[in-house]
């Protein structure tokens, strides 16, 4: 019986917290605890954990550092970051370095946390582990015919992406979410590079919804927005692959695009893998509000560009429904 339970590890320097987590989770899981990053890594080396839950604010090693090491030592282990205070730097690192499954704020919801842990444990057990391969700047870009969609108000971003990709992949660029929907319908998009806001519209909704419907598409946020809640939602509901604050170095952008393309091809090759990036449900009505906003923006855009063919709105509506399956 005990051996069937998923093995989870809770890390926090505050003993009361680990005790609480243990009490909360011990009924369903085999809970191990550690009061520091070093202790946690030692345990990871001894046991095969399904899930590691770590607090961010700890002496010596931060939670992000612990989870990054866990990812390296045990790629199949799902990682959850627990934090009392949304420190933007920590959140960005949790995406880029630790590739966390969820980002959970203290105090946690005692009804939800066991479910999230159970989901993570289930994924860890059922889905194949991702390769821990490190992508380096020297490695060639492999696109497998996929296309990169850049959604940004600033054409310089598309320019920058085109420059780092070169001939290896096609780059489509738009400043308009309606066009983005069109492109997503028509072309096989591997990677979306998006800003959080396009025009006046919150583009993160598109990103989040896309991941829930099309988990093999890899999303990179390239943004100068620094709102912790936005990024938290992008992690939990959009499983974004990378969060890159602007301005970005060309070398780093190349590295990010390259690994995103590789990520996409591995997700395509083995569809089971994308289960590791299962997202939290978006708030109800998100899809409708996104559709209304995009239509509204598209109409304004159309009014400015008379040359656009008639019947575009009808085509857009159909495309939107097809894309999101409504």
């Amino acid at each position: 019986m005990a051996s069937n339970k998923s093995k989870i590890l809770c890390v926090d320097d505050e003993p009361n917290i680990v005790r609480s987590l243990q009490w909360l989770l011990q009924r369903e899981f085999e809970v191990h605890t550690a009061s520091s990053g070093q202790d946690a890594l030692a345990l990871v080396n001894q046991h095969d954990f399904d899930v590691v839950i770590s607090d961010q604010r700890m002496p010596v090693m931060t939670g992000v550092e612990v989870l990054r090491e866990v990812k390296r030592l045990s790629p199949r282990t799902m990682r959850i970051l627990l934090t009392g205070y949304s420190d933007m730097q920590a959140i960005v690192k949790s995406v880029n370095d630790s590739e966390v499954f969820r980002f959970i704020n203290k105090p946690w919801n005692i009804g939800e946390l066991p479910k999230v842990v159970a989901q993570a444990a289930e994924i860890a057990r059922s889905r194949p582990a991702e390769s821990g391969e490190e992508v380096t700047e020297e490695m060639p870009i492999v696109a497998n015919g996929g296309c990169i969609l850049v959604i940004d108000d600033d054409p310089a971003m598309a320019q920058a992406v085109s420059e780092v990709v070169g001939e290896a992949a096609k780059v489509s660029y738009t400043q308009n979410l309606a066009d983005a929907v069109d492109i997503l319908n028509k072309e096989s998009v591997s990677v979306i590079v998006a800003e959080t806001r396009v025009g006046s519209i919150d583009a993160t909704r598109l990103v989040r919804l896309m991941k829930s419907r099309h988990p093999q598409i890899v999303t990179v946020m390239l943004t100068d927005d620094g709102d912790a809640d936005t990024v938290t939602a992008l992690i939990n509901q959009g499983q974004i692959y990378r969060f890159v604050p602007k301005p970005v170095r060309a070398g780093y952008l190349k590295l990010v695009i390259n690994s995103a393309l590789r990520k996409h091809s591995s997700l395509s090759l083995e569809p089971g893998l994308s289960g590791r990036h299962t997202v939290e449900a978006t708030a109800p009505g998100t899809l409708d509000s996104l559709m209304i906003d995009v239509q509204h923006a598209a109409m304004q855009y159309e009014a400015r560009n008379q040359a656009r063919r008639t019947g575009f709105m009808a085509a857009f509506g159909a495309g939107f429904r097809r894309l999101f399956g409504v």
Partner: protein
Amino acid sequence: MRFRLVRHFTLASLGMFCLVALTLIYFEQQQAAILRQVQDQQGSFFNDVQQTFAKRQDESARRDLLAIHESGNVNLARLFANALWTKDFAPFVAQARTIDAEQCRNLPDVGNGGSMSTTAPKKACFAKIGQRIMALPGFRELDAKVYESMRKSTVFKIKVFDLRGITVYSSEHAQIGEDKSSNAGWRSAALDGTPKSELTHRDTFSAFEGKVENRDLISSYLPVLEPGSSRVVGVFEVYSDVTPFLNRIEQTSSEIQLAAEVNQRKVAEAALENQAKVDATSDRKLGAVALLLALLFAGLLLIVRRAEKIIGRQEKEREHSHQQLAQSEKMASLGQMVAGVAHQLNTPLAFSQNNVLMVREALGGMDLPMKVAARMSMILKDVEGDKVTLKVSQLKANLDKLEGGAVDIAMLQEMLGDVLDGIGQMSEMVVNLRDFTRLDRAAVAHADLNKSLHTVAYIAKSVIPKSIELVEEYGDLPAIECNPSQLNQVFLNLINNAAQAINGAGRITVRTMTAGSKARIEVEDTGRGIPEDALPHIFELYFTTKPAGEGTGLGLAIAKDIVAQHGGEIKVTTRAGGGTTFIVTLPVAQQPLVKAA
């Protein structure tokens, strides 16, 4: 002394203007003096010229008079000689020559050196000769002829000398017989044949027609030439009256003198007038300059006053924006603190909430088992003997609910114990927050700085990264009269700065000690140190090494202000890569606090 623009400007410019005015007046006066001097010189020169001219004119008139009369006398003598000499005088002179004059001439003269005077006996001797001449026959006839021919002319006297120098005839009979051989005029005429004239003034003079008074006379010694030859045979002396001419000359001279004086007066008047004009012009000039200076001053004063007003307004605006910045800096550090505190509170909150909810759930599961147990106890109370019959069918149906009663009560107690622990942590935080802000207490108090520092350290621990160890080493400190809330702000700022200087792991040590009459508080870190080029500026307003938008550059400036208001000092020692120590020294015997701006 505070710099006051308008006052300083007024004093300086008025002083300057006075100096300019004084300089101008001085030079004007100097110029007027020079003008006066030039005019005086011109006047006296003009005077000299006129005087010289008048004198020359007078002299030349007299000379001309003399020359004209001499030549007139020469002609007269010729006429006289032609008329009287051959017929009348020549025989008479020849007679007179027979009278010996040598014995009289041999009589000694008296006197010494050049000035010789004839003695009375000598004079008497010559007078006797005159008697003898007058006694000669023909004298009366001759005398009458001479008198007749000379009457009604300007000639007052005629004398005739023989070549010995003896007066053989004189219209003044008393002079006949006198020796004139040593007379310069006679010698010139007799020996050189040259006439000689002389202008003399006589108060009384015996003329042909009796005595005359106050007369200007020209006496001419004239050689008498033998008719038809140039041989001098005798000497005439003719006295002619020039008084009317001389009077006319003198009158002309005096007229010239008068004209000169009038001219002189005119020149002087013109000079005075010019002087007055120049003075008036100079006064006008000074007036105009004074007016212009006054205008300039007024204009500048207007500008300066406006400038002062603008500067004052800018000063106020700067003060205002500085206050706003200080306020926003305070808000920013407060915000950072609140975020840290919120995180710190989140931890006990999280586990307390978790535990309470779990206990509540567990208690919910214990509802039925507890009822069953209570019922059992009531049944057991009524039962006598040791056997009870239970209907288990109902109980079996609720067996899953009864299993919930198998909770570990000790575990629940432990959970609640943790909750109490959490509440303790939270209330400790609240107490510290209250101690930190001291909003419910007087701003100025007699405070124990060690306690204050401990509060600050407690708060700071929740803000700074956990990889940084915060060590408190407190020595004995007397209570200090201070504004603890402000000092707390300073210490929190210093600890935050220290934390920001540390990358990754490190240590901050907060130390207190008494040094003489001062309390010394040190905040030492193991961070990267302050770069040499930044060190002199760290306490300056708006100086920051953080990127724009992250640091206001006010933290340390405000800290320095606050410490200064407490009469203390803030210093820093740093070593690149070796950490930094900020040292705050506060006087133990506190003077009244400087009111915070």
